[in-house]
């Protein structure tokens, strides 16, 4: 059956017909885009005018997120900023520590089991003028039940006294940089870094499998996609063990699952050959809504966690250089095997030294296994300079920049981590485009919220949380930003022949908007309201979630 939808405007992101008034859909695919008369030429069709007053654009594509955000919403939201949960409830940001504690207390009162842990997420004391949260603060919520609140960055966990007791850490004499001590010689309750968070995490509700997404989490994530206008998303670092894959196939295969999930296998705890073998087997199990067969390699840590690898002169505040999470030899093996077997690799690099390592290593690997169109993508790539972008272009690489970082941590980078000059050119979208590197921009949900229009707003305005503009010269235009969250992201996943624009032959994936992002003005891009999505021709109104 052919359905022709009318719309106030259809922004196609295609060169041929940038805008149109109607789009015809047949069997979940775009039969054509144009005028009603042109489309009627295809034969019998039903005219559906439900979108007559809406603006359609290609379904938005999130090129770097983690479906585990869906699972995180089971915890108590303690963030500074307003955020909408999968069920549409808008959680007002907690602006002070007292408000955070109040929220936790309300959640605590709802817990029936007196021993069950209370877990929170998205805390960020940076927004409380960096007044640190202590175990005594959390004790005011409960001294009998273990409490743990994860920071927005994912690198710090705050716990109460009970949790420290359960973890065997309420004792004097602990000498570890990740465990600050109070005047009483005991830990303050703040735990920095995965090694110290891990042993406590299990006592406060963050169990070992949190990296993997569970069934209810994946379903919740689907709802988040609809709210954000997203029709294709990545799950950028999935463990993808057999049970997880079975679950994901089942959940995404359901009639009304609203998004296509591109899941990348995280390289960890196996040899490069084992990884390739596994990924090739996974590729064979791909379905339309669960695309498998790509790899994610993490090379370094994070800038705000001081674990990213920086070139000279290093961190602005003098902190020691960060950590390598992969050895050059392993990275080389993975890249070579991937090129040889036609498997796409996305590498996480935050620091510019890590970026250099990837560039050098890929350069070498390509000599052994030349590839016309590998499109290996560097994710985050926050500190790359023009010379590095130039090399990326020459090597045939893509980049996915963390535009959201400016808003959430821009002031921190300016003051503390990399200093003013580099902060202004972090996530250099304009330079990337100028150097000809195919570009996408991302949220890295749950680190920052899933909302490509907000991400586009960040790239256009480069405003920090304190309201400063950071790096005028790296701002990009609205058109470029909208391209980045549609065709740009599709290109980094080699899906641009299927999605990313509204053109004949592609999937009927649309973001249905109340407002026109090309007319609302760059400063208001984040305020564009999403009515819902169309994915493979199926309609998902936000109101029905």
């Amino acid at each position, binding site marked *: 059956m052919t359905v022709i939808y009318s719309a106030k405007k259809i922004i196609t992101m295609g060169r041929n017909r940038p805008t149109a008034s109607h789009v015809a859909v047949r069997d979940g695919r775009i039969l054509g885009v144009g005028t009603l008369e042109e489309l009627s030429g295809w034969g019998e069709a039903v005219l559906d005018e439900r979108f007559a007053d809406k603006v359609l654009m290609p379904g938005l594509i999130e090129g770097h997120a983690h479906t585990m955000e869906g699972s995180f919403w089971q915890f108590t939201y303690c963030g500074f900023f307003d955020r909408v949960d999968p069920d549409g409830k808008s959680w007002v940001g907690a602006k002070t520590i007292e408000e955070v504690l109040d929220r936790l207390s309300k959640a605590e009162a709802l817990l029936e089991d007196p021993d069950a842990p209370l877990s929170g997420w998205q805390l960020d004391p940076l927004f409380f003028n960096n007044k640190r949260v202590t175990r005594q603060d959390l004790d005011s919520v409960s001294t009998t039940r273990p409490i743990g609140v994860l920071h927005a960055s994912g690198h710090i966990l705050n716990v109460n006294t009970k949790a420290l007791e359960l973890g*065997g850490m309420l004792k004097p004499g602990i000498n*570890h940089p990740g*465990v600050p001590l109070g005047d009483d010689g005991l830990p303050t309750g703040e735990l920095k870094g995965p*090694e110290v968070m891990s*042993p406590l995490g299990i006592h406060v509700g963050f169990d070992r499998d949190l990296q993997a997404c569970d069934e209810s989490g994946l379903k919740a994530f689907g709802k988040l996609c609809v709210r954000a206008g997203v029709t294709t998303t990545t799950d950028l670092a999935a463990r993808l063990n057999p049970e997880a894959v079975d679950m994901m196939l089942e959940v995404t295969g359901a009639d009304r699952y609203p998004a296509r999930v591109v899941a990348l296998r995280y390289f960890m705890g*196996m040899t*490069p*050959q084992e990884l390739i073998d596994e990924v090739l087997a996974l590729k064979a199990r791909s379905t339309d809504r669960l695309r498998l067969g790509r790899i994610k390699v993490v090379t370094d840590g994070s800038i705000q966690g001081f674990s990213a690898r920086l070139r000279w002169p290093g961190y602005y505040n003098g902190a020691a250089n960060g*950590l390598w999470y992969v*050895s050059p030899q392993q990275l080389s093996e993975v890249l070579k095997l991937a090129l040889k077997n036609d498997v796409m690799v996305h590498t996480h690099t935050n620091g510019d030294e890590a970026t250099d390592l990837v560039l050098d290593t890929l350069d070498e690997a390509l000599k052994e296994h030349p590839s016309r169109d590998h499109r290996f993508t560097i994710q985050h790539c926050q500190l790359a300079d023009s010379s590095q972008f130039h090399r990326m272009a020459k090597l045939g690489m893509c980049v996915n920049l963390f535009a959201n970082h400016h808003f959430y941590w821009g002031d921190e980078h300016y003051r503390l981590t990399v200093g003013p000059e580099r902060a202004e050119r972090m996530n250099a979208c304009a330079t990337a485009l100028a150097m000809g590197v195919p570009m996408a921009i991302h949220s890295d949900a749950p680190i920052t919220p899933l909302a490509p229009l907000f991400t586009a707003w960040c790239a256009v305005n480069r405003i920090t949380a304190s309201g400063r503009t950071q790096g005028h010269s790296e701002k990009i235009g609205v058109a470029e930003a909208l391209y980045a969250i549609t065709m740009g992201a599709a290109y980094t996943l080699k899906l641009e022949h299927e999605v990313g624009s509204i053109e004949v032959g592609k999937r009927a994936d649309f973001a249905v908007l109340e407002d026109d992002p090309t007319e609302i003005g760059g400063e208001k891009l984040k305020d564009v309201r999403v009515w819902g999505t169309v994915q493979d021709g199926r309609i998902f109104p936000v109101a029905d979630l």
Partner: protein
Amino acid sequence: MNPAPEIARALLPLTILGGYLGSGKTTLVNHLLRNANGLKLAVLVNEFGDLPIDQDLIEAQGDDLISIAGGCVCCSYGNDLTLALIDLANMDPRPDHVILEASGVAIPGAISAAINLLPGYRTDGIVLLADAETIRTTAADRYMGDTVLRQLADADLILLNKCDLVDQGALDQTRSWLTQQKPEALIVETVRAIAPPQVVMDSFLDRPRDALRLHLPDEFESRTLYPAPPKTATDLAQVLASESLGLVRAKGFVTVANGTRHLIQVVGRRWQTSPARPKTPDAIVCLGLDNRTDWNAVEALGLSAGVE
């Protein structure tokens, strides 16, 4: 004769084996497993690829655990070292000693600090393997250089491996360079990563004397000290760890001036003491290296039972 019960119920000792790729960690691990002499070793590796354990030692192999002759095991910690350690401490039967083969780019000091947070564990020492052929080049590598230097800085003992593959002149230069990087470094030269188990793990200092004698190569010596009660355990421990004495390891019990008893553990220049109530008399087993250890000074600390 088993170690005194107080030690057995105490924290699970863990040795961190560090060093860049190709330095010989895996070879050393296999050597230790072959010479475990009844000690139940648990080896922790990042991943099982490229077979970390020699085939003939393997009894059974699962996804995350390899069973090894002699009641030893090898586990992969993959994503989460901390949780793997917690699981290991809960194993039944419990291992006697854990060897953590750190990844080639890991910073052993950071791992050690993290392990000391875990109830149930104590770090026995950081043993670092350095490839005599390549260590200086790697330390100058633009990407890995600072990582390698940090590894060296964290080491309690340095095993300078593959000494047979470099000529004497180059070896001397490398030794001298190592000493510059870490002035008090205790360097043991090895070939094919073969170092006596007693050097790598202090649990072997609890073993019966005849086992010690059988396994020590010529350049090593083990003597037992019966020191007079020091003022504090710290005083004696600091002396035993001093560079002038040049001991590789020391471990044992001492009664201090106020009558309390303590356990002293020394590896290279690092020492720890803790209160103890052992059933055996005071004695400290000292492991030394020819041309490095001043046995006269050691003996001056207390009556020795003689060379063993």
